[in-house]
């Protein structure tokens, strides 16, 4: 060994003489209930009292069941029924539990006992015998000798889990482009949630907020909620001149009326807390705040991109219609959304 390896600091070396000694069992301390009969009697009464409380609890639970019968339509009866039955049964159970623990702690013997743990290592004979058995099995089966069998068995074991992996493919339909398109099409009328009544531009007065679904959604019988979760729109009219519109989006609003996706671009909560005078839209889940007058850009919070705008127009009868679907996916950003 080299000189360097030997020159460790004495502080890091194990000093056998000063090793921490097993302190042993601390001296047994008598409890008050061991020392005085009066205290033991008291503890006995306390335990009995807890068991009696348990009986009272059971009676309260039965009383609650009969005193507040759950009968047709009266929801407040459910409340009292559950409350008293729950309290009664808890008291019943806790009474037994507390009583048993108190009994064990105060009256049952509490002498300290040490049980030695056996060694983890098997005896040398056992170890040698195990090796013998394995060698014998290898010799008899020819596991090492018969290479063909051994290798095909490895192969079979490797292929066994493949069907289990393949059936994961049946867990659901292929997503396809369902995340990238919604029910909105050119000419779809904007309708009120939940009634599905189409909205006229003249009905949207300044400062108004309409919660909007595409016309036809209210009548869907299949996948209604999935479609609503993607197509929900917030429709707002602001004072003329307030809107700051990019040239390429200038034709997307109608006379101060703008429509934006209601699905937060952070994790998809409905962004619907609209402040009339600040034009801010607030998401209730994580406080992302969007400026509705400025392309719903994010002014605060964890959302990473603006809410997608729905281009709108007015049809011959004065109803608000969509010019097209959203031009980008709504809701939370996902990895291949721009593809």
């Amino acid at each position: 060994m080299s000189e360097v390896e030997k020159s460790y600091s004495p502080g890091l070396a194990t000093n056998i003489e000063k090793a921490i000694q097993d302190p042993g069992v601390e001296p047994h301390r008598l409890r008050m209930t061991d020392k005085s009969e009066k205290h033991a009697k008291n503890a006995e009464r306390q335990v009995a009292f807890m068991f009696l409380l348990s009986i009272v609890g059971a009676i309260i639970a039965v009383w609650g069941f009969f005193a507040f019968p759950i009968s047709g339509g009266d929801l407040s009866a459910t409340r009292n029924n559950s409350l008293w039955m729950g309290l009664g049964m808890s008291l019943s159970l806790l009474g037994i539990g507390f009583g048993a623990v108190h009994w064990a702690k105060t009256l049952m013997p509490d002498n300290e006992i040490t049980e030695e743990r056996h060694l983890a290592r098997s005896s040398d004979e056992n170890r040698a015998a195990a090796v013998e058995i394995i060698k014998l099995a290898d010799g008899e089966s020819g596991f090492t000798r018969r290479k063909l069998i051994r290798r095909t068995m490895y192969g079979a074991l490797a292929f066994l889990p493949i069907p289990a992996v393949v059936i994961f493919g049946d867990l659901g339909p292929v997503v396809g482009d369902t995340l990238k398109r919604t029910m909105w099409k050119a000419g779809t009328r904007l309708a009120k949630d939940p009634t599905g009544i189409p909205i006229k531009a003249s009905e949207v007065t300044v400062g108004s907020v309409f919660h909007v679904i595409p016309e036809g959604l209210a009548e869907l019988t299949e996948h209604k909620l999935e479609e609503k979760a993607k197509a929900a729109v917030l429709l707002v009219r602001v004072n003329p001149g307030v809107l700051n519109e990019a040239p390429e989006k200038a034709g997307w609003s109608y006379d101060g009326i703008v429509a934006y996706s209601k699905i937060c671009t952070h994790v998809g909560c409905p962004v619907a807390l609209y402040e009339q005078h600040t034009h801010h839209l607030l998401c209730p889940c994580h406080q992302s705040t969007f400026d509705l007058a400025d392309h719903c850009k994010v002014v605060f919070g964890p959302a990473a991109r603006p809410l997608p705008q729905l281009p709108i127009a007015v049809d011959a009868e004065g109803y608000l219609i969509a010019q097209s679907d959203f031009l980008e996916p709504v809701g939370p950003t996902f990895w291949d959304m721009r593809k």
Partner: protein
Amino acid sequence: MNSDKPLHRKPWAAGLVVFFGLVLSGGGYATATNVVETEFGSAEQVSEGRKLFLANCASCHGTNGEGAIGGPSLIGVGAASVDFQVGTGRMPGQASGPQLYKKPVQFTEEQILAMAAYVASLAPGPALPDPEFLRTDGDVEHGGELFRINCAMCHNAVGAGGALTEGKFAPALDGVTEKHIYEAMVTGPQNMPVFNDANLTPEDKKDIISYLKYVENNPSVGGFALGSVGPVAEGLFVWIFGLGFIIAISVWLGAKAN
């Protein structure tokens, strides 16, 4: 009777005094309230309202309600707006801040109506609600659905209120009168948006009011509502009291008896 003795009241004297007092004051009120019944929007009421307006509102809202530094224009806000803002004590405003608070009402009912009539005479705007739609016998289920779609995001699913940005908040709705709920929907006070009659029909508004009054007057089925302020408060309650109880039991289980 011996005049040296101090006078003793007969036991029934106090009762008699109280009785006459009640009759006098009650009767007085009855006569006073009988006088008030004037038609809404009469020339007399409008001119009375204008006087009150000039004395109490014009410094912020301009002498003709056209708005000034510190107060927006009241042209076209309608009688409903005045009745809501003054009737809930928010106006006259006490101090500027993120939001005006509800506070004790500063005017009598007739003074409020007079100012409402004056402001309504400036330009057409949302009128006082028809009492027909302030009843609470509407369709509670439909009202609940409309409330969850249009209102619950700010005011909480059972109207317990909630926070907005930068110190603003949506107030709790319990204890708010039917009339003021209706007026808030049609006028959109402060940062609340407007819900006009095309968006929520008067019948819809009645259903919403019925729903709010239903949840106000019926206890929570689930037991203690903890203010109905949602999962954070409920979670905190469980963390502190539920886990606290479990920790206390664990400590007790592990401790030796003395």
